[in-house]
């Protein structure tokens, strides 16, 4: 191809997306390709440990630490988990997280509503003290909790652990939900009062449905915080209420580390977090309040 024909063909080729030798892509497009490459590299770096764990979980037990790229995937590690105590621990985790989330919402949501809507003395201070409960390092609270629990008999119980998780989740609920409630115009509640609602009914029929996406996101955060807790679960449980993250450490033993089970259990523990994170993303972008008021 001569230079002349190449030049003549350039506009057409550019339009169909092919770039002849000397015609360079426009600057914005080059810029975007670079950006995508950087994002992809970052993604791979972040996902690598997870991917590595998942592939370990799928290897035959004898070859878990084998470096070979090609292997026959198997569910043997998961089956081995199913035989032992792990399903019980997983169930404990589900119970503790669900219970603590439900309790935190039941107490925290009305508290957040009152802190947003009612003007009373010391309102700001109350809100700050609720947040302050989250600031204390867990280790500072562990020994008092441990002693108190031994005394009241809540040690090594699902309810006891859920209660502890509730204490640190309430502050999350109160602070998250205050923002969501504040975004709902007061006049909607006032309209509901005039339409015949009492304060509680207006909250239940108007405010809460409008705050539902925020409520869902908050619930997921509470669940994940409780699900991920290792520290309190390690100190306050022994046998019957052990949660999944603590159970994994039981695979690190004197006789050797059971890498296959560790990887399989890690993969299972990660699944709900992954699922819920996707859920939160969906809820957070949805704006329900659009259109009720003149903008």
């Amino acid at each position: 191809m001569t230079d002349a024909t190449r030049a003549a063909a350039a506009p057409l080729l550019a339009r169909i997306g092919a770039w002849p030798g000397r015609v360079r892509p426009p600057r914005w497009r080059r810029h975007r390709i670079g950006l995508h490459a950087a994002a992809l590299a970052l993604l791979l770096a972040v996902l690598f440990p997870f991917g590595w764990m998942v592939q370990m979980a799928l290897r035959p037990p004898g070859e878990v630490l084998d470096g070979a790229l090609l292997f026959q995937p198997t569910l043997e590690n998961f089956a081995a988990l199913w035989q032992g105590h792990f399903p019980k621990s997983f169930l404990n985790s589900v119970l503790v997280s669900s219970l603590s989330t439900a309790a935190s919402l039941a107490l925290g949501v009305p508290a957040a509503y009152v802190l947003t809507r009612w003007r009373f003395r010391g309102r700001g201070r109350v809100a700050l003290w609720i947040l302050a409960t989250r600031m204390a390092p867990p280790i500072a609270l562990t020994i008092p909790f441990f002693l108190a629990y031994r005394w009241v008999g809540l040690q090594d119980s699902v309810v006891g652990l859920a209660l502890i998780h509730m204490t640190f989740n309430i502050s999350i609920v109160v602070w998250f939900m205050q923002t969501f409630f504040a975004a709902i115009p007061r006049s909607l509640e006032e309209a509901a009062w005039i339409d015949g609602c009492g304060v509680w009914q207006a909250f239940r029929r108007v405010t809460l449905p409008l705050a539902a996406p925020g409520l869902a996101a908050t619930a997921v955060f509470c669940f994940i915080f409780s699900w991920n807790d290792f520290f309190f679960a390690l100190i306050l449980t022994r046998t019957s209420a052990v949660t999944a993250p603590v159970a994994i450490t039981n695979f690190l033993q004197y006789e050797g580390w059971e890498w296959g089970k560790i990887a399989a259990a890690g993969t299972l523990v990660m699944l709900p977090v992954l699922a819920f994170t996707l859920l939160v993303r969906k809820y957070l972008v949805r704006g329900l309040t659009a259109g009720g008021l003149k903008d």
Partner: protein
Amino acid sequence: MASVTIRDLRKSYGSTPVLHGVSIDIADGEFVALVGPSGCGKSTLLRMIAGLEEAGEGEIRIGGRLVNDVPPKDRDIAMVFQNYALYPHMTVARNLGFALTLKGVDRVEIAARVARAAEVLGLSALLDRRPGQLSGGQRQRVAMGRAIVRNPLLFLFDEPLSNLDAKLRVQMRAEIKALHQRLRTSAIYVTHDQIEAMTMADRIVVMRDGRVEQAGAPLDLYDRPANRFVAGFIGSPAMNFLSGRIAVNGGASFHLDGGGPSLPLAAVPPGAHGRPAVLGLRPEHALIDPEAEAALEVTVVEPTGSETQVVGQLAGQPFVGVFRERVAARPGDVLPLRLPPAAAHLFDAGDGQRLV
């Protein structure tokens, strides 16, 4: 339907008083407009009637019942909010029927009443939509519909048209008035737009700084304003105010402060000779008359087609005239004006109260 009686109502926020003893009587079926500049307390008063603000001192009675401590839900009132306050998560039909659902009205009955209200307001095709899918005017109609479906004792309107464009506002104004004439439910309508108040209300209550300045029929307020504030607030363009002195030498006349010819007066209070006063004259009452002695130095001429507005100076004081005829004056010209004594208002120079 019900009458509303408000007696010596007071309210303060902290140490700032917002209502200083307001008393208003609203007859059964009457349409009353509360007007006044921003911060005059008209919205606070409306919200107190609705039960959304605690009543301070004084009494609010709806249909003879003292409601000071009655929660909004038990007052049997309906309110149209400035921002409409439609429930975004409900369809138009559910928005309209929400109050009836709460009352436990039968579902078939609710559907019938919603359908009837929707038909009156032209919303029948929109019943399944959510507020987010409606235009401003349609949302306004839904807000109106939510009020009329209930058949309440009293309608409260809090500047319901202020978010609409000018054309739609005029249309909705007529619709609200027609609706009121059909339903004859007592209504209180808050607005800062005196044209809205004049065109819609049976009676207007003009408020300023938490006090009632004057209450009366629209044309009474226009013809005999009780003070300078009401005179300036009602009417557009606003009334002209010329300061000067009253002279009584045989006939009564008014001497403008900037000099110029003395203006004849129809009536003056006794012993008014030499008293400083303010003469008020509506722009539309000034007449162009080649024989007249008062001279308007023209600064701006604004023709609107149907009339001509001329802005200028009369004896060094600002003056606006509105004329039905076309005026060919230019800035700098002098226009001879006759100011009819019968149309003039006299106010005290100090407290602004009407003199005669």
